[in-house]
């Protein structure tokens, strides 16, 4: 045993290799391998008559995704929702994360963390169906708004074309509410971690130099917390792009990318189209990260 230890200690490269082979195999085959397989599927196309996949490299499927108006609609709809959800999550999470880290007592802080994470420990499906009931036409939310006299305001909101619908549970507005609820913790946690890393002395220096608390937040806390905001927004953005359960349980009947992937690889049996559709979020996230990087979101890392 001792001989083996000494042998490996003197050969760090071999030692590292032995340690890394199992996780690398797992990562390489399961993650990258399956991703690669998926991506290769997307460069094939389905034969219109036989409904069989033709194994000849072609860009026809991609052309179908980006040129057919119905498919473009799906992409635009999904991206708009993802952007709206991400912005809303950021706006809600910033004050919460800042309060948690900077102002709450240690006890209150622990409660905040549990409160943020508790919903993540519950079944996803239960939460989605619960929201469907909450948002239903005779649901608790419209009852509550009626009771406090805001029923008319809800009616007005639901009459907005494109966003509204017959009830909250059958509108994009309702879907938006559920998305924000679902992904908010994924924004709060990285943001809180980033704010926590901002040294207290920087905030004191800012106040010392004459900045009011609002100015300090804008010029010191926010720029230094940007990597957290970027990480959180990648979560909320990509989770919304890829989700197919929330759009199928809550909201208006329009298709989302996730639903399209689910349908094409399942009932329709069009694996290449499903694969091409799942490439869309990957490309979008890459574009987003590039923009975030250009904008300096990772400079403070």
């Amino acid at each position, binding site marked *: 045993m001792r001989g083996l230890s000494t042998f490996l200690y003197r050969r760090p490269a071999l030692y590292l290799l032995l340690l890394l082979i199992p996780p690398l195999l797992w990562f390489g085959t399961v993650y990258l391998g399956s991703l690669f397989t998926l991506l290769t599927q997307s460069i094939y196309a389905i034969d219109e008559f036989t409904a069989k996949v033709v194994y000849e490299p072609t860009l026809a499927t991609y052309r179908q995704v980006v040129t057919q108006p119905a498919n473009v609609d799906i992409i635009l709809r999904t991206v708009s929702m993802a952007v709206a959800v991400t912005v809303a999550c950021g706006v809600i999470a910033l004050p919460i994360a800042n309060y948690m880290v900077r102002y709450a007592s240690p006890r209150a802080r622990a409660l905040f963390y549990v409160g943020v994470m508790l919903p993540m420990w519950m079944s996803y499906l239960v939460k989605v169906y619960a929201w469907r009931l909450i948002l239903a036409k005779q649901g608790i939310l419209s009852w509550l708004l009626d009771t406090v006299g805001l029923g008319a305001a809800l009616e007005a909101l639901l009459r907005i074309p494109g966003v509204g619908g017959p009830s909250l549970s059958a509108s994009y507005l309702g879907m938006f509410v559920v998305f924000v609820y679902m992904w908010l913790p994924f924004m709060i946690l990285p943001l809180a971690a980033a704010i926590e890393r901002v*040294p207290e002395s920087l905030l004191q*220096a*800012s*106040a*010392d130099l*004459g*900045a009011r608390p609002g100015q300090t937040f804008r010029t*010191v806390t926010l720029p*230094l917390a940007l990597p957290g905001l970027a990480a959180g927004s990648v979560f909320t953005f990509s989770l919304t792009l890829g989700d197919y359960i929330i759009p199928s349980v809550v909201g208006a009947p329009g298709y989302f990318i996730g639903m399209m992937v689910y349908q094409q690889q399942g009932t329709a049996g069009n694996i290449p189209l499903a694969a091409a559709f799942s490439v869309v979020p990957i490309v979008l996230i890459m574009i987003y990260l590039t923009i975030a990087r250009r904008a300096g979101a990772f400079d403070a890392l």
Partner: protein
Amino acid sequence: MTAAIEFRDVSRVYGDVHAVDRVSLAVQAGEFFAMLGPSGSGKTTCLRLIAGFETPDTGSVLLNGRDVTADPPYERDVNTVFQDYALFPHMSVLENVAYGPRVRGQRKDLWQRRALEMLDLVQLGQFAQRRPAQLSGGQRQRVSLARALINQPRVLLLDEPLGALDLKLREEMQIELKNLQRRLGITFVFVTHDQGEALSMADRVAVFNRGRIEQLDTPRTLYTRPGTAFVARFVGSANVVTGELAQRLSGHAQPFAVRAENVRLRAPDVAAASDAMTCIGAVADVQYHGAMSRWQVRLESGEVFAAALADTAANGDFTIGARVRLEWARADAVPLGSAEAP
């Protein structure tokens, strides 16, 4: 004349720890004032009370005669150089220095010019576009100084600003700070645990111990006439003689202090000078410090005395364990106030 800074019976308590315990003091305008003490003595808390990062539990803080006890930091006419410099990592050196004018809404051409002037003042003009991470410790220190001075505060607070620098740089910065203060004529309040730094730079020094000011005096008085055993030990590393030994040596029980460089060592058989206090001990240890050596001598009654002697042949060379006579002039024994526990 109104004091630049005044504390009236200020206390700050954390749980059951009295970080600052009923402190009253007045710092004059244009003074270089040092707060000296071991860690946890309350000196940094006092600085934070002036800056406004802390609020006193009792008492009041006045700046130029105005009560600012309830004012937040951004409404106080003081600026701070932080121990870790606290430079904004996401801004360039120029933006860091210009931060004060910018948050006060000054025009861009104005703040740019002012910031460059300040950078020239600390000889960092050519580093304006760098990030703080690309600077050395000493350079960051200067940026931090320029950033605090650009607001033209009446009082500049410095929290152990030289602690992270190496010895040579620290000595250079001491001279530079002192010159800067003379040139600008603003009040400097300097927190340090290094008595050498406090003595060499300050006009007056407040020695802190357990949340209180033990003594507030000029460096010379502090060193030559320490008021308490704590000050004698902390500022001068002096020998403090108490109890029976004090009685035997001086004729009365009042404690007194003798600085190590006033103690001479003689062979035990050499006769003592007429007006000297003297006692016999054995050499316990010797540390070589270059220009001088520091000897530890243990008396038969158990007390340990320190003697700092120039490293010359005239001062003799004793082996460890050798019996020696300790001797100092009666005038060098400084009587200490309040029979405080040693």
